[in-house]
């Protein structure tokens, strides 16, 4: 996950707090291992090295693939589970950000959900293509833990995996969870403060990682159709929704709208905070 994860629970029951904390940790680690691009033993790695052979996937992976497919359709192809190969044109992974836009046309040939054969439970990924669940995995993990916690207790619980968070149970003492949206200019300072009583918040856009070409700033969420980040994208979008997956999807899709982010979220009638 590469981000600090925490669970806050307001209770006098030490055992309950332990159980929920441990479950959160276990689920986060499990999902990370299963869908990590970096691990040789991860399922995703196995899928991505299948060389065009059909693979049977388990029910959980199938649900995530269906979700990714739905987001691809709802975003008219801007969001695509197969767009992970674009990192070869924009290397954010190690060291200074390198931009190799000349690689994009070639990479685009290896992108496109329409090239994938997905007939649950059988997935056929053409050779050279990759599946990346990084865009939806974290929010999914938050939702899993939150749904499980809600069944264990009515006490106020907040699951926060690196800024994607969801609360369950009653509101805490004081009436609400106080969440800060990190300022894009001053790390560690809150630019906006939000009081969350129910539901989830997810934030897209990372001020720490961005690229600038010819004076134009680009984020790191790539439009799968063009291979470039959306023009005029805000630096940070936070959305509130009943689940973390929905909040994350709204914020990602809004980011892909670039200049149209505000208009998109307004049409969707979801609560949002945009920092430009």
């Amino acid at each position, binding site marked *: 996950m590469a981000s600090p994860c925490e669970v806050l629970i307001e209770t006098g029951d030490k055992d309950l707090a332990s159980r929920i904390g441990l479950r959160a940790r276990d689920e986060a680690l499990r999902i990370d291992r299963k869908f990590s691009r970096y691990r040789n033993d991860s399922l995703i790695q196995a899928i991505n090295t299948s060389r065009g052979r059909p693979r049977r996937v388990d029910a959980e992976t199938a*649900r*995530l693939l269906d979700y990714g497919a739905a987001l691809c359709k709802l975003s008219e192809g801007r969001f695509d589970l197969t767009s992970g190969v674009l990192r070869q044109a924009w290397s954010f992974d190690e060291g200074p950000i390198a931009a190799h836009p000349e690689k994009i046309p070639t990479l685009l040939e290896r992108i496109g959900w329409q090239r994938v054969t997905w007939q649950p439970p059988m997935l056929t990924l053409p050779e050279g293509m990759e599946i990346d669940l990084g865009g939806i995995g974290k929010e999914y993990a938050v*939702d899993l833990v939150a749904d499980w916690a809600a069944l264990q207790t009515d006490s106020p619980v907040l699951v926060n995996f690196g800024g994607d968070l969801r609360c369950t149970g009653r509101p805490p003492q004081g009436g609400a969870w106080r969440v800060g949206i990190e300022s894009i200019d001053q790390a560690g300072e809150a630019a906006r403060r939000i*009081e969350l009583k129910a539901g989830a*918040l997810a934030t897209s856009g990372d001020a720490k990682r961005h690229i600038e070409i010819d004076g134009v700033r680009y984020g790191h969420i790539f439009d799968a159709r063009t291979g470039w980040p959306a023009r005029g994208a805000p630096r940070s979008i936070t959305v509130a929704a009943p689940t973390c*997956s929905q909040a994350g999807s709204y914020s990602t899709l809004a980011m892909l709208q670039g200049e149209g982010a505000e208009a998109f979220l307004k049409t969707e009638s979801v609560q949002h905070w945009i920092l430009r």
Partner: protein
Amino acid sequence: MQLKKPIGASLAAATCGLLGALPAAPAAAQDAKDWDIESSLLYYGEDNDRVKDVSLDVAIRRALDEDRSFSINLTVDSLTGATPNGAVPTNDVQVFTGASGGKGYIVEPGEVPLDPTFLDTRIAASANWQQGLGEASRWNVGVSVSDEYDYFHAGANARFEHDFNLRITTAYLGIAYGQDDIKPVGGAPIGLTPMVALMDNGGGADEEPGDNDGYRDGGTSLSKDVTDLLVGVTQILSRRSLLELSYSYGKSDGYLTEPYKLLSVVDPVTGIPVPGPDGAPFLYLYEKRPDQRTKQSVFAEWRHAFDRDSMAVNFRYMTDDWDVTSETAEVRYRWNINERSYLEPHLRYYTQTAAEFYRTVLFADERLPRFASADYRLADLDAYTVGAKYGHLTDHGEFTVRLEYYQQDSNPSPGSAVGELANHELILPMSAAILQFGYRFKF
């Protein structure tokens, strides 16, 4: 190109497929409310046509971030009613020059003289800025100012706090300085000189004080400096209790006398006031207090949380170089009836010993003391307060109503009830009702 159709329903369906179910409730998030406004409307009324006060108090607080905040406080209050002028009752009518030096007033036989000419509106404002300093400290600076017809105050204060042991212990140090200007109309009378009474049928503003009437040449402004030092500590004792202890030291320098208050000078046997100068029927002297006062006090408060309710008990002991010592004890019990309303009964007990120069009357045959005052507030007195506050929270704010009853009884200085004075009540007990409405909201 923008998406034309809202995707909400489709996204919800897709998420339901992913998670198996969706929460029933929508998200509830809102911007944090940084502004906090608290207002109170207060009625204060004493019995026997004495002081009545109506005041409006507004506090505006704004949090700028986790570390910094500021607050502004505004108070307007309007004072009317009569207050004892320090003289004692006699079997005759008494006539006094009013506080303004012009208008006079008449007191019936047997009545404790009350000066009804006080009428004032006061406006006070203060502003404070609070800033964190590192993880465990905070400092707070502020200014205050108040103005009324014959009194002006300006001051500054600063306070520093430091937390120890993850805020189990917090120590604080504060200092305040104020300069007050007193501008009695017509100038302040020279202490322990006679008051010039107006003629019985006079009492108009056109009466000029005579040359030897004890007034200074008019319009003099007098002042006093007040410096306060405060040091304290708050200690969390357990999951449920905390204890706060503080010590404070205060020094006042300058004009500390009440310019409009008097002492009756009576015959030591009959208790009848002796005649005044220039054919005035009775002699009254203006009071005079020392021009310095040093106070020290120790304060302790214990706050305790029960599962539902809470209570606070505090105690203050004060001593000063005017020989006044006082003890105050207070109890508050907060009964949290439910999540939205509470009732908080309150009891306070106060007792003080008289100032060294407090005299209910002066005797004609004694040597004039250096300082003397018959102000009942410097006498030996006991007071208690009984009251309750009710609060109710709505979605937008909190309403409160507070009703308190204050009763004060003073003892005259020993040996005062000579002659006919034994038949009169020399100091009127005072009772007052306090009714306060409050509203607090954030946005």
